[in-house]
Structure formats: C-alpha cells, structure tokens
C-alpha cells in the first residue's frame, strides 16, 4: 500500500446562517455540510470526489486546503493536521478552485503566475524557468502574455490550472478542472492530469462529468448530503451494482414527473432519475433507469413514455457506468 497523503476521520461541519425576518428579527438555520466523513487518499493516485451540488464537495476541499476549520473530527494532509499546522499544509499544496474568479484580470497570465509563485516563495530564477515549463506543458504560449481580461472562459481555466502547478506541489487539488473547456481541450487536460500522476503527483479532483471520473480516477468517492456513500475504484463501484444494468433515453415533451413514478413501480427497477439539458430543439429530458434487465422492461417503458404524451429521441439499454453507481447510491443524476 502506498503512503497515505490525505486522511480524514469523522469530519463534521455545520454552517449556521441567519435569515433576516424584517429589520430586527432573524431565524437561525443550521446546514449540516459534512456528517462524519472518513476516507484516505494514497500517494500517486488520482482521487475523484463526485457529488451533486450541495453534497459537501466544496466544504471538504476547503477543509483539506485549510480555508475552513471543521467542527469535529480531523484531517491530515501529508501528515500535517489541517488546523494546527495549516502553514505546513499550504506549502505543499497546489490548488485550482473554480477557475475564472481566481485570477487578476488586469494582469497578464504570466504576471499572475509570477505573483502566485512569489507568494509560494519560489525563488525568482526557478520561477521564471518553471513558468516557461508550465506554459509549454499546457500549451498556453499564445495567450500567456495577454491581459487576463481578454481571455476566453476556457483560457482562464487553463491559467488557473497553470497556477495550481506553480509551486510544484506533491498534492494538487483540482475543482472541476475541465469545466468551460471545449471537448478537445478537455481531452488534452485529462491527458495532462494523468501525466502529472505519472510524474509522481497525487491529484484530488472534483468533477460532475462521469466519463471524466471514469477515465481519470484511480479511485472515486461519492458524497451525498455530507456523507461518503461509496468509495473504491470505478470497477469496484460498478461491481456493487450486483449485475444491474441501465436503460437510457432522451425524451421531448412536458410533464415527465408522473412517468418517473410509473417506471419506479415496474418490476426489477431499482432507481429512476431524470436530468434536463437545453438543446436547439428545446429541453431534452434525459431518463436513466437502473434495473435488473433493461431489455425486459424496455417495452413497458416505451408504452409508459407514449402514454404520457412524450416523444422519444432515442432509447437504449447500456452497460452500467459510474453514473449508475451514483444513481444507485444517491437516487440522483449528477448533471
């Protein structure tokens, strides 16, 4: 077993927010963001954290990167406690938080990297060389000397990624690293992330793109409502589905909610979920059914769809993916 790089034990975090009720009254609201999270990340692996919005991903990343103090439990990063030895932890982390707002728009990309490199106390001559290496590594030569305010969203994400590499840290946190990137750039970035792992770095990433998690991650944790509900390699997680498969369909039309309840009642169906995606033709309702035998329920599902006045764009049985694992454990889709 490799060395443990991140170790958390029974982490708890509750946010207390005050909701104003008029000028003088306010109502206190408690939001339990983490409820006893325990897991480990090992050296030289790509570890993915999957979870819907509000599941606790950001809270967990903020605790591990020392921006937030937990209410209970502990977290150690590279052997250092994130609360008591936060300075030591910070020295050894490269962090890319959600891209665009993490940069100075009135500085060039290179000036941004110089600034953050100096904050990490990278010696000047090393910094110059490292910036050049990162620029070549990420292929961002074309725009590195332009003001960030002229960048596209994708270029800003790439620069934020470059920033996470500036201190040559052994552990890199990447929060949605391919968001806002075009498909070609996303593939390129995934290749770079693997390359970083092959060079000996440990990567902790969050993503909501299941293919990405499946392709990149050595291990994945699924977090929902502040709890880790599943953890393992993508293959191990798929095996927990116990032979179940999926049926997926893209539908057009309104009033899809009753359909979900009707499909849920079919025999052999474990979980049903719907996500929505805007398209040129209108909103597509993307249906996913986790069941024992998709081929057996296919005719009944088609009948139900048509009875509800919906149109089928396509429908097909598929092999289980991480998306189904996610659906199995959380009852939700991650899109």
């Amino acid at each position, binding site marked *: 077993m490799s060395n443990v790089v991140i170790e958390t034990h029974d982490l708890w*975090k509750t*946010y*207390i927010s005050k909701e104003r009720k008029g000028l003088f009254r306010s109502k206190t609201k408690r939001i339990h963001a983490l409820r006893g999270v325990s897991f480990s990340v090992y050296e030289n692996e790509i570890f993915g954290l999957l979870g819907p919005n509000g599941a606790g991903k950001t*809270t967990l990343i*903020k605790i591990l*990167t*020392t*921006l*937030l*103090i937990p209410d209970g439990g502990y977290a150690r990063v590279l052997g250092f406690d994130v609360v008591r030895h936060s*300075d*030591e932890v*910070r*020295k050894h*982390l490269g*962090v890319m*938080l959600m891209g*665009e*707002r*993490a*940069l*100075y*728009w*009135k*500085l060039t990309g290179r*000036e941004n990297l*110089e*600034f*953050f490199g*100096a*904050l*990490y*106390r990278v010696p000047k001559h090393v910094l110059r060389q490292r910036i050049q290496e990162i620029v070549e590594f990420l292929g961002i030569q074309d725009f590195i000397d332009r*003001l960030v305010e002229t960048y596209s969203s994708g270029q800003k994400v790439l620069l934020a990624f470059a*920033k996470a590499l500036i201190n040559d840290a052994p552990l890199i946190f990447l929060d949605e690293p391919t968001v806002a990137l075009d498909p070609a750039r996303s593939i390129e970035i995934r290749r770079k992330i693997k390359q970083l792992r092959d060079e000996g770095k440990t990567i902790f990433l969050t993503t909501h793109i299941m293919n990405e998690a499946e392709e990149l991650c050595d291990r994945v944790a699924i977090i929902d409502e502040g709890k880790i509900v599943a953890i393992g390699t993508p293959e191990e997680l798929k095996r927990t589905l116990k032979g179940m498969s999926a049926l997926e369909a893209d539908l057009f039309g309104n009033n899809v909610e009753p359909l979900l309840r009707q499909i849920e009642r079919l025999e052999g169906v474990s979980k049903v979920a719907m996500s929505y995606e805007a398209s040129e033709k209108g909103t597509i309702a993307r249906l996913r059914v986790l069941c024992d035998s998709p081929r057996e329920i296919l005719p009944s599902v088609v009948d139900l769809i048509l009875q509800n006045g919906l149109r089928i764009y396509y429908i097909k049985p598929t092999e289980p993916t991480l998306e189904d694992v996610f659906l199995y454990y959380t009852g939700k889709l991650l899109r």
Partner: protein
Amino acid sequence: MKAVFKARYKIYVRYPGWALLNIVFPLFLTVIPVFLAFGVTGSMETTNLIFSRYAKTEDFVFYVLLGSTVWSLSSMIMWDFGMWLYEEMEIGTLEQIFLAPVHTIELLLGSILYTLVISLINSIGGVLIASALLGYLHIVLSPRFLLALMIILLGFIPLFGMSLFFGAIVLRIKEPWAFFNFLTALLVYISGVFYPLAVLPPSVRVIAILFPAAIQIADARAIMLDVEYVFSPLIDTLLLISYALVWPLFGLIMFEKIKYEARKRGSIGAY
C-alpha cells in the same frame, strides 16, 4: 511582500485615471472650505483675520491645504489594507491568497509599501502643484517640509495597525461601506482637517488626540506654519510613538482572531 507590491502597482498603472484623481483630491478638499469661508466673510482678508484668532496664522488657504493633504494621505494608509481585502474578495482572489503559505504581516507590508509609495508620490505631487498654483511653493520647498514629513511618517505606524483592524472588520462584515462612510465623516470632523483642534469642544478634543492623524495634521502645521502643537513637540512625538506600539499589536490580534472566525464560518472570500 514584494509580490503584493508589484501586483498592486501593475494594476494601478493600468488605471491611469486613479493616479490623476488621487493627485487632485486634496486640492478639491481644500477648495470647499475656502469658498465657504469666502462666502461667509466676503473676502479672504477678513477670513484670514478671523481665522488667526484660533489658528494663530493668517494663512487660511495653506492651513487647509496642509490639513487636507495630510488627511488624504493618512486616510489612504488607514483604509488601504481593508479596501485591498475588499477588492480581493470582490474579484475572487482572496481565497487564493489565503491558500498560499504567506503570513498576514507580509500581506500587510506588501499592501502598505504600495500605498506608501503611491500615496506619497500623489500627495507630494499634489501639494507641489497646489502650492505652485496658490503661491506657497517657497514654504513647501523649505527644510521644514522634511521635518513635517518625518512626523507624518511616524504617525503612519499606528495607522498601519488601524489598517489591520479595519481589514478585520472588512473580513467580518463584508460590506464595509456604511461603516467606512460614517467613520470617515467622524474622523474628518475630529481630526481638525479644516480647523484647529482648539475649536472642538474639550471632550471631543480628548477623543481627537487618540487618533494619530489629528496629531499628524496639527504637528505638520505647527512645523510648517509656526502654529501651536497639540501639546509640545516632545509630548506629541511620544504620543505617536506610544500609539505606534499599541495599534499594530491590537490590529494584528484582531485580524488573526477574525480571520480564524472566518475560517470557522467558511466566509473567507465570501462576498
């Protein structure tokens, strides 16, 4: 420290309008009371005569110019760290800065170095331009100017501490504008920017003396215009030195305390 200075400086020079406005600001501040006085008394001669009863100088315009210049400089120093934190929160880079292994003192020093350089250039430039226009260049170019500058610089040390304290308030309340506006108005009132501290009620004068800028302004005038010190050159200097010992420590303790609370609440960078 150098990194913060360089980044802030580069951003500043990419907004050339800022520099121009900062240079002319004390001049604008001077013009208001001068016109007001002219409107009330009907002539500058009468204004100077009446004014000399309290201020012991007949140079009303230069008196106000000096007050407004020192005030602009001091308020820039005092608010700077808080305003910088606010800007960082607004653009979203504050979390990134706090992710780096850099101490608050280094951030403060970088921020201060930038403000000190920029505000001194602006203020000296502004006072030279205004003095040339108003015919006071001979006073400004005298050796007394350097002595006044030393007193002003000494007064900056407690103001740096206050700056940390206001930075802590920005981290806590996020939208500091109402507080900022209230305090600015209050401090202008008690600092004697446009009048000598002697015109203030005795109880207000006691509060005013607790504020370093009030001593900076009074002493800069005393040196340049031979008017009265707050107490005496020695006592005023000792007061500023004692503030210089207390305020930075207080500011740092408060900032670290509120930063820790922000880390508990998860509100660092929240805007």
